[in-house]
């Protein structure tokens, strides 16, 4: 095919490009990046990214599989590249440590994270239903307040919150971790955005005509429609609550949550790096299980959040 023709219909730049492709022996198959299959180099880069992503947890498990002597000998490299039985021994020692109670901390974390996520999903969907589908005076103003409150940096209120918890007698109580985060602005915003699109007015009207109360409408119509977004919200809330460290370390004393075990490890097993690292792995691993089960949903959630802004 002549270059003159290409120049005629697509311009001189296209000719240059076509010639360049021809010189490299590759015909221009497709202009569209979404249908072009990437080469092996892309996969090599992705493999490196994968290795880096999982390396820290892997490294903690490998350190946890080693004795102090082995770690001391392994300067500049990992003490072992495959997990050994030592890991289970170390796990046993961490679980049975007298300085802290691992299982109590685990249950505390679970209790807080589950109740916070459940409450957040329920109250956020309720508020989202109201903001997106019901008409009432002041709706706009109230919704703007919700959005504006997201911009407040959380740490500013730390000191007064601590004083309040002290007055309530909630210091060292799980209530201090649970009650303030039962529902957040982000959740309300998220559910409102979702329900606006996912819940047709016709359904609500139909339910009303059938004589359902608003609450019944919410429970039977809005709640099921909101399920995908609610699951994502629950996941993010769970991860956030499980990993949070700053606020628990302000209000908790003897009662521990999972992240609060970490600062205890070095005190408990002073020089035994293997034990400390196996403890770190044990503390971080539960969320990894959640991730294996629901990682797909997390990915979709992050990407959807970006699109909706």
């Amino acid at each position, binding site marked *: 095919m002549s270059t003159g023709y290409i120049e005629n219909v697509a311009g001189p730049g296209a000719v240059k490009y076509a010639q360049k492709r021809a010189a490299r022996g590759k015909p221009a198959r497709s202009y569209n990046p979404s249908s072009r299959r*990437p080469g092996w180099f892309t996969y090599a880069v992705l493999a490196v990214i994968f290795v880096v992503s999982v390396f820290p947890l892997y490294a903690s498990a490998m350190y946890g599989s080693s004795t102090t002597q082995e770690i001391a000998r392994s300067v500049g490299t990992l003490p072992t590249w495959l997990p050994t039985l030592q890991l289970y021994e170390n796990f046993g020692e961490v679980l049975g440590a007298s300085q802290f109670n691992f299982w109590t901390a685990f249950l505390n974390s679970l209790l807080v994270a589950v109740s916070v996520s459940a409450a957040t999903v329920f109250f956020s969907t309720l508020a989202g239903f109201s903001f997106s589908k019901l008409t009432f005076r002041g709706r706009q103003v109230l919704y703007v307040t919700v959005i504006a409150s997201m911009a407040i940096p959380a740490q500013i209120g730390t000191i007064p919150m601590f004083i309040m918890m002290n007055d309530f007698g909630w210091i060292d109580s799980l209530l201090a971790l649970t009650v303030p985060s039962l529902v957040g602005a982000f959740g309300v915003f998220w559910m409102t955005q979702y329900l606006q699109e996912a819940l047709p007015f016709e359904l609500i009207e139909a339910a009303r005509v059938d004589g359902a109360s608003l609450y019944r409408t919410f429970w039977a119509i809005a709640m099921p429609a909101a399920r995908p977004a609610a699951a994502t919200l629950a996941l993010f809330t769970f991860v956030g609550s499980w990993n949070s460290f700053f606020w628990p370390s302000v209000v908790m004393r003897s009662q521990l949550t999972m992240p609060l075990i*970490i600062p205890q490890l070095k005190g408990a097993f002073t020089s035994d790096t293997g034990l400390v690292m196996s403890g770190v792995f044990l503390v971080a691993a539960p969320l990894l299980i959640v991730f294996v089960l629901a990682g797909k949903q997390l990915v979709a959630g992050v990407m959807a959040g970006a*699109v909706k802004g």
Partner: protein
Amino acid sequence: MAHDAARQRATRRVGWGQRLSRWDLKISPYLYVSPFFLLFAIFGAFPLLYNIVVALHDWHRRAGMGEFVGFDNFSWVLEQPLFWRSLENTLSIFLWGGIPQLVLALLIAAILDQNLRVKTFWRMSVLVPFVVMPVATAMIFGQVFGQFGLLVPNLQELGILDHVASPFFQDRLLSHMAIGSMIVFRWTGYNALILLAAMQAVPRELYEAATVDGASRMRQFFSVTIPNIRPTMVFVILTMTIGGLQVFDEARMFDGGGTGGGKGGADNQWTTVVLYLYELGFGDWQDRLGQAAAVGWILALIIGVVSIGNFLLTRSISSSSAKPSRVSKSQRNAVIAQARAVAAESERKAREAGVATIIGRATSTDDPRAADVDQSKEGVNR
């Protein structure tokens, strides 16, 4: 008779139900949003206002509210060399954690924005660090950067480091880089996915047009991709700023805590502002809630200023690089329409001349491609 009574009761019930229903419609919407506002009033708005009161008083944990001291707490904080040191540390860690993070996130997003096999697996793999507890990450990175860890002995072997002990816990700048790397580790994949979602929303015609004009893939990235994902980049940078200036977990656990640890190093090399606030209020240093509250206000002010600065900066940078391709939607559509008209025209001519055309093939693939783009968008929403 009995039948009549039943009907009467039924009608009366409907009337009462209607009144109830009207009441339901009026009150319920407020009832449904009230949990959020109740909680926000108690644990969001009130502490914000109360913080002013605390910052203006002498306040200790056990003694409680002391006497009114005006702005003494603020001036006390601003006179502390440690406060300024922690502020410098925070900004430095923010830069070391933020700039590589943004560059890498863009890069990873561009890599993921291809027609990959096992797409979901790669996307999940970049999100793993996000679910690893930050304090656990800090402990592990502390081990890696430690004297006998993975990094230091090898760097000594290569002659890059000549310290005996690990300099990452001594040298101020190196400690900032180490903590920055934890932040990069945690957030890069997360932000890459956000940017990826934005990239997939860029109309594919633009890339096609750029390819036809002879733009290399590099040039396409800078002149088509970046300007088109600008709003998302502003969003990413703003959230990064708000979070990045409140670093606490990584700095506190970098040296593993333990006795005397967790304060940001022997020389406060990596004490951040929030760590300073924590130590002022609850740590071993003092029991100065009033001053800590003042730090909270100062930090909020700094976050506000840096956020606005970043916002203006990103806007100006990406708009200057956007010039070559900054066209309005109508302009773009006009250009596309024009090109289609030209193509149709030449196709007609070619058909008249009895020549098989490449344009014909190009237009026939047009529709499947559009469907493809729609599909990927749907995937995002799901």
